[in-house]
Each structure stands twice: as C-alpha cells, then as structure tokens.
C-alpha cells in the first residue's frame, strides 16, 4: 500500500484538467447571464419612468387612476372627513405603522400606487370597512391613507416618488 500514500507531483494532465474546468465554469456563468438578463425590463420600458398629471380638475372626494410604468396610480382628492380619519389612527392599530403625514405631501392629496401589496390586484376606491380601498381578489382593506387595515396584504399601498410642479400639476416618478 506504499504506492497509494505517495504524493505524485502534478503532471500536465492535472494542469489541463483544472484549467479546462476553470475556463468551462467561467464560460458557463458568462454565457448564462445574457440569457437571464434578457428577461429584465428593457430600455424602452425603463424610458417611461415619469409622467405629469393635471390635478386641477379633480373634485374633492374623487379618486383618479393614472397609468404609470404600466400600472395604476391613485390620485385621491381627500375630503376633510377622510383626512381627519387618516390622521386620528393610533399607530399601534396598524400592521405597517406609518403616520398619515409620512404618506402625503399635502393632506388633501393622497398619491399611492394602485397595486395591492398582497398579490397585485387593483383595489376598488371608497369601499371596504375603512372606506379607503377594498381589494376584490382576496379581501384586503385599506384606509383613507392607503394603509393596510385588514386582510392578507402585508404592507401599505406604496407611495411613489412625486413632486408638485404647481398647485394643479404633479410629476410622478
């Protein structure tokens, strides 16, 4: 058994084996990436990243749905009662605690993504126990600040990046 314990010096075959294996592994990884990355949002999709919305014609109490990056964004002109309800909620009651002030720039304008944080359906406005939104897919309920109150959704409706260009104009994105 002495031969088995002898350590042979690496020969040319060992070198070729390792070198081929290393180049092969790098090659597979380099070739796999283009095939994975081709599925990511393409340049034309990324180019549509911001829109301007004229909010001057939205009366108090109405929700307008605008399309941003292929999906809905709710622009809600809140009534005094809705603002009050949104502001008077104890943070301890919330699943995803956020004050109303953290979610709006001007109290009368609530701008949130229209994608239910559960599985992506579009919730229906002025519905549900809290009269914010009700998702018809799995019954999630949001309040007048777009915060999750009941149902399976884990998070509040997302607030997109936006900026008031004037009193009647908002740039989303």
């Amino acid at each position, binding site marked *: 058994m002495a031969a088995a314990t002898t350590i042979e010096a690496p020969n040319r075959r060992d070198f070729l084996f390792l070198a081929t294996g290393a180049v092969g592994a790098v090659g597979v990884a380099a070739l796999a990436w283009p095939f994975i990355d081709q599925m990511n949002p393409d340049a034309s999709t990324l180019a549509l990243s911001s829109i301007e919305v004229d909010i001057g014609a939205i009366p108090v109490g109405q929700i307008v749905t605008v399309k941003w990056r*292929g*999906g*809905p964004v709710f622009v809600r002109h809140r009534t005094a009662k809705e603002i009050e309800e949104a502001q008077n909620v104890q943070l301890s009651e919330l699943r995803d605690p956020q004050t109303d002030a953290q979610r709006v720039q001007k109290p009368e304008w609530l701008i949130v993504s229209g994608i239910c944080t559960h599985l992506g359906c579009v919730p229906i406005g002025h519905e549900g126990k809290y009269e914010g939104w009700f998702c018809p897919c799995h019954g999630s309920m949001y309040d007048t600040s777009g915060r999750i109150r009941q149902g399976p959704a884990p998070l509040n409706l997302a607030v997109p990046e936006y900026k008031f260009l004037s009193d009647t104009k908002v740039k989303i994105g």
Partner: protein
Amino acid sequence: MSGPSTYVPKSAIGRWFESRLPVMGLMHSSFVSFPVPRNLNYMWTFGAILSFMLIAQIITGVVLAMHYIPSATEAFTSINDNIMRDVNYGWLIRYMHTNGASLFFLACYFHMLRGLYYGSYKAPRELLWIIGVVIYLLMVGTAFLGYVLPWGSMSFAGATVITSLVTAIPVVGVPIAHWLWGGFAIGGPTLTRFFSLHYLLPFVIAAMVGLHVWAVHVTGQNNPDGVEVQNAERDTVPFTPYATIKDLFAVAVWFILYAWLIFFIPNYLLDADNYNIANPLVTPAHVVPEWYLLPFYAILRAIPNKLMGVIALLASIVVLAFIPWLDRNPVKSAKYRPAYRLFFWVFVAICIGLGWIGSQEPNDTMSLVARILTAGYFGFFLVIMPVLSFTEKTKPVPVSIADAVLAKKPAAAA
C-alpha cells in the same frame, strides 16, 4: 415485469430493420405482449385517456399558434375576432383547446385519486408516482401560461396574482417579479415570454410522460387488490387485445363528454370576464382561477399572512411527492383498509369543499371554513396517513390476483 421480447418480424424488411433498430420490438413488448393484471377496472383507463388528451392539446395548440398573435395590442382580437370568426373552423379548434384543458385536468384528478385509493404510490412505484407529481406541476404551469394568452381581464388578473406570489420572498421578491414581467407590471413583454413557454412546456410534459410510461413498464401496473403479480400465466393477460380495447372504449366514452362540452356548452367552464380585454387599471370584481385550480386558490386565501399563504399553496402540491413515505402501511389497496377508505372519501369531500370555497367571494365566514378545510387537507397527508400506517386493522389480502378474481365467481370456477 416485461419479459424478454418474443417479437419476430414476419417480413424480410422487418427483420432487416429490427436487427438495426429494434423499435418495433419495443412497441410490441410495451403495448402488445406486455402483461396486464387481469383484475384491472375502468379506473385504469385514465392513463390512456390522458395520453389522448395530451395529443389533442398539442395538435390543437400547434394549429392555434398558426393564427394567434402574441402581442398586448393584438392577442385579444386575434382570438376573439380572427380565430373565433374568420379562420375556417377556428372556433372549433379554439373550443377544443380550452375545454380540452379542463378535461385533461379532470382525467388527471381521476388518475391521481385512483393512485391514492389503491396505493399505487407504494414500493416499488415511488418514482413512478413522483414523476406523476412532476407532470401534474408542469400541467398546472402550462395551463396557467395558456390562460394568460387570450389577454382578457381575467387572464391579466390571474397572471398578476400568480406572478406576484414571488413578491412574498423577502428582499429579492420584487426584483424577481420585475424580471418575470419584463417590466414594472404585467405587459407586452410578459405575454410574449408566456407564449414561448406555453409552447415549450407540453413537449417537456410529453418527455416526462415517456419516463412515466417507462417506469410503469418496469414495475408493472398496480391493481385493485394491490397484490403484486406472482405468476404471469395466472395473474395477467396480454396488453393487446385486453387493455387496448378497454382503453379505446373508455377514450371513446370520454370523447363523447368532450364533444358535448365543445358543441353544447363551450363557455360553461370559461369566465365571462375573460371576454373583456385586459385593462391594467381595473381588476375584475371577482377574481377566480379556472375550476381545476380552485382548491389551491382557497388554500392561498385561507391563510391571513401573505408569505405563509404562498408557502401553504406550494406545500399543498409538494406534499404529494412525499406520500410514498407518509403512508407506510404495507397493504396497498383501500379495498382492504376500511379506515383509510373512509378518510379517503373525506379527503375527496374536502377537496371539493375547498374548490367551492375558492369560487366564492372572500368574507369572514368563508375564511373560517377555508381554514378548517385546509387543516383537513394537510391533516389527511401529515396525520391520518402516518397514524393509519401502524394502527389500522386491515382486512385479509388475497394471496394472488388470480385468487382475488376467482373468489368473486365461485360458481364459474366450479
């Protein structure tokens, strides 16, 4: 099980061919001389029915792809105007394909419940069963992708709900969703990739069916008495003509049902909302999947936590692959397992109950019932099966298949 082939080609050309590529011999040993347990009942014809449904789906699908346009602006009209009205017999082929999917699943559920009832997953058929679970998963995937293609409002909502399941994964969930969509929401790029994969997966299914059939030809079929073949002379009959004719008869009866669906109630199993074009800004008032996925949808909705709901949904299918090791009772057939037989039918009722709940609007009462039934669904596999493995008092099992058959006809035997 499949003994040495005794196939000898009759013609000189046949012998020349056979000595170079023994395809005819393989067909002969698999579908002519293959020994079939002599006690099989009609529940064993669903394998043949499923093969025919797969072929029907592939042929109608290839034809539909000649007329369908996978584009967010044209997909809806290419089906509802072009294929349904203008293409010669387009309406027929389209209804064959959509209703074919339903009947494919119906036959698949009979096939799976047959396996569950008669213990077809037990040794030595564990791998055969697991390949079947893989085929079922591929079928669910293919059906889901196909349902998106008409680009109706329910297609869009279904695609949104199912792809959004990945957003339950912490941190990387949302980037994965954007990667799946090719955008920030379901859109044109999603449709084209779904079409590509919907065309691919049926051929993967066909390959897996090849493995499934290969595996069953190695172990031989299970049978209603669940005792293995001991003496091929006494216990079996040749596949042709016995199984061939019986299978063809069952397929013919099944196709009557298929034709009735296509010609008399072609929209009964479809959703009226899907005749509205997809609108990313509005979700239909009542989002439901096709009937064959309703039980899983009910399990998803039953759990009030997003991540746990998604895990329960996946677990409800993955658990099937572990059945061979959850049920350790050496007796295969429910015929000789009175307690298991009772729980089997309770399980069937639970599945139907979950399906019904999945079709209803979500509310507090429904959620409660859904939770109870979900517990029952998992309880059957994770509690009842292991407990009955060791505690059930089984009835005496016949010594052989021949004994079981002859015991039923004492007069004829005498």
